[in-house]
């Protein structure tokens, strides 16, 4: 459909409704914390958490390489452990910020410090994470490679630090933590065959192994957990990888693989604009004919979490790459860049086309707590597919627009059409955005007589 019709059909009513609900629900978090405390006391037997189950792990970054490593377990909600794992399902269920925070704060991080290279005493003789399957690290690694929550018994040194005090400012939420003395498996974890294969093959470089798992249908969330536990790659390269780094590494690696797949693909043949909105973030994705080029521009509204002063101007950050990709890590936009790029590349690879792509992300003041980069990944992925919450409410009005896009004559005409929807002027966007300033042409466009 035409771009202006498309924009018109994106009615903001739903967002306003969500905003209203968010205001009403803002006490849910504090109620939830009190409940967690009660559950925790019930589950504690002496200094052990019995009947616990851990769906995922966490590897911290502080004082690298001697980092905190932890198993994450829902306390008092063991039967529903699967739903505590961050993945695309959260988007499909249309979780709001509160829902995410409830799950995050409902996971107890029982942790110990470990060296990323030689995490257990036994492996100090041969300093490699490769063979460490004993002790707390071993249990943590079993949890990481299993494809379903693993039943555990966790020994604790002290009471958990809840992190969030009811009534306190909820600016940077994190879950409760406890220092673990040890952990024991209460079952034999189920490990999928392709994961066993990457685990056992210690001549296989990490990037190849990650790509293999992706092609075998594992989503980046699962691969991230396996990489984090040091369970793939060449033997002497294997180490524990802090969760945050591994998320970016997996997004980047899988993105590079997909970019290679479209390198020689034909271009799309029209300018397409798609929108998505989720958790106070709005996305515009503009695809234009030509060889691969990508840029993410983030516009952070005053009053949103990274731009807290309500009287400040909109903050802009951007990063881009050309046909051959980047050689340096992005200085601005960080992990969001790789997450957004992955979402776009998955779409292009699925249709066997390449394109120039500009992703505009507007962060409104409704985005009051950071939920993680998965939100960016799922919003961009689903701008090509489905609206948030489709799984729980298939009758959402915007669902009718899923897969639709607005067409424009040219890339710059598309930006002109979007300009009134953006929180910044077209001139300011042009100054910040490499693609808005100009799209890279190639020499063959000038070779033919009609040039």
């Amino acid at each position, binding site marked *: 459909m035409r771009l202006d019709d498309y924009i018109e059909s994106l009615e903001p009513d739903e967002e306003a409704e969500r905003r209203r609900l968010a205001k009403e629900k803002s006490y849910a978090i504090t109620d939830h914390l009190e409940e967690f405390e009660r559950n925790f006391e019930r589950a504690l037997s002496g200094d052990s958490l019995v009947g616990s189950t851990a769906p995922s792990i966490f590897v911290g970054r502080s004082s690298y390489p001697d980092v905190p490593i932890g198993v994450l377990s829902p306390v008092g909600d063991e039967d529903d452990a699967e739903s505590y794992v961050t993945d695309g399902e959260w988007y499909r269920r249309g979780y709001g910020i509160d829902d995410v925070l409830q799950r995050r704060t409902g996971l107890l991080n029982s942790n110990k410090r470990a060296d990323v290279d030689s995490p257990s005493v036994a492996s100090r003789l041969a300093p490699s994470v490769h063979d460490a399957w004993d002790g707390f690290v071993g249990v943590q690694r079993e949890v990481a490679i299993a494809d379903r929550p693993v039943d555990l018994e966790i020994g604790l040194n002290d009471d958990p630090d809840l992190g969030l005090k009811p009534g306190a400012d909820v600016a940077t939420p994190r879950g409760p933590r406890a220092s673990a003395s040890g952990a024991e498996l209460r079952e034999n974890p189920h490990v999928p065959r392709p994961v066993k294969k990457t685990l056992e093959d210690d001549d296989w470089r990490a990037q190849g192994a990650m790509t293999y798992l992706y092609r075998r249908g594992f989503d980046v969330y699962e691969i991230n957990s396996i990489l984090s536990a040091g369970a793939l790659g060449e033997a002497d390269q294997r180490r524990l990888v802090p969760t945050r780094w591994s998320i970016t590494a997996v997004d980047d690696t899988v993105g590079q693989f997909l970019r290679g797949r479209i390198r020689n693909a034909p271009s799309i043949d029209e300018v397409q604009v798609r929108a998505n909105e989720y958790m106070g973030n709005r996305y515009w994705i503009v695809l234009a004919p030509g*060889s691969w080029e990508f840029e993410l521009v983030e516009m952070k509204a005053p009053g949103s979490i990274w731009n807290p002063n309500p009287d400040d101007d909109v903050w802009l950050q951007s990063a881009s790459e*050309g046909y051959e990709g980047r050689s340096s890590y992005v200085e601005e936009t960080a992990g969001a860049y790789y997450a957004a790029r992955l979402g776009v590349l998955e779409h292009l690879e699925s249709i066997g086309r390449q394109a120039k792509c500009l992703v505009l992300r507007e962060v409104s003041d409704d985005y009051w707590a950071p939920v993680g980069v998965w939100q960016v990944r799922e919003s961009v992925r689903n701008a090509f597919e489905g609206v948030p919450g489709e799984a729980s409410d298939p009758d959402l009005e915007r669902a009718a627009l899923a897969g639709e896009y607005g067409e424009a004559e040219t890339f710059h005409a598309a930006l002109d059409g979007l300009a009134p929807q953006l929180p910044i002027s077209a001139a300011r966007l042009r*100054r910040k955005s490499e693609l808005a300033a100009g799209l890279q042409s190639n020499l063959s466009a000038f070779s033919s007589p009609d040039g």
Partner: protein
Amino acid sequence: MFKAIVSAETLTSALDSVSVLVDECKIHLEEEGLEIRAVDPANVGMVDLSLEAAAFESYEADGGLIGVDLSRLEDIAGMADSGQLIQLELDEETRKLHIQIDGLEYTLALIDPDSIRQEPDIPELDLPARVVLEGKDVNRSVTAADMVSDHIALGVDEGEEFFYVDAEGDTDDVHLELTREDLIDLQVGPAHSLFSLDYLKDMNKAIPGDAEVTLDLGEEFPVKIYFGFAEGLGQVTYMLAPRIQSD
């Protein structure tokens, strides 16, 4: 058959001006000298280089074609001091290049030319404006623009008759005007195009500060940049596709 002796400086200049765009290239070993043409994988930047036989201390060739890994050849050439001579000889049997620098012998395995990206056709461009300036002014423009932006506009003001450089960043701007007095030559014509600094920075690296550099420009058209090296016996032409502002 190919056998040549060349100063380290001349060889390094030639290789550097190609390696800013590609990792591997084909070298034509013509009777009259060397020729290299290459385009980067994105087909955005192109180089056309010739180095006359007279630029060598001695030169014998009969029209062969070799493929080389540029960074390896550059590394070897980098072993020589700037005044030193480098001797090159092609072994037709083994398809290897024997390189000698003052007793140091290096045998470089060549790459099958067929496995290297096809050489580009050079587009025939009718570019209305011509600016001739010193290499150091190109360097000054590119370096200043890079402080504020990732792209640079090059243009000619027809009314006031000057060449200009514009860079717009997030918050800061760079603007430079060079009039006839500042330039070696200026042919006025309609010209304004935007270019990626990633490419221009690389090309700039290969331009000697004291070289006379010619820029041919148009409106949203590629720029043609050419300059001589090795006392005018070598010639480099770059072509760079613009970033399009209107489409």
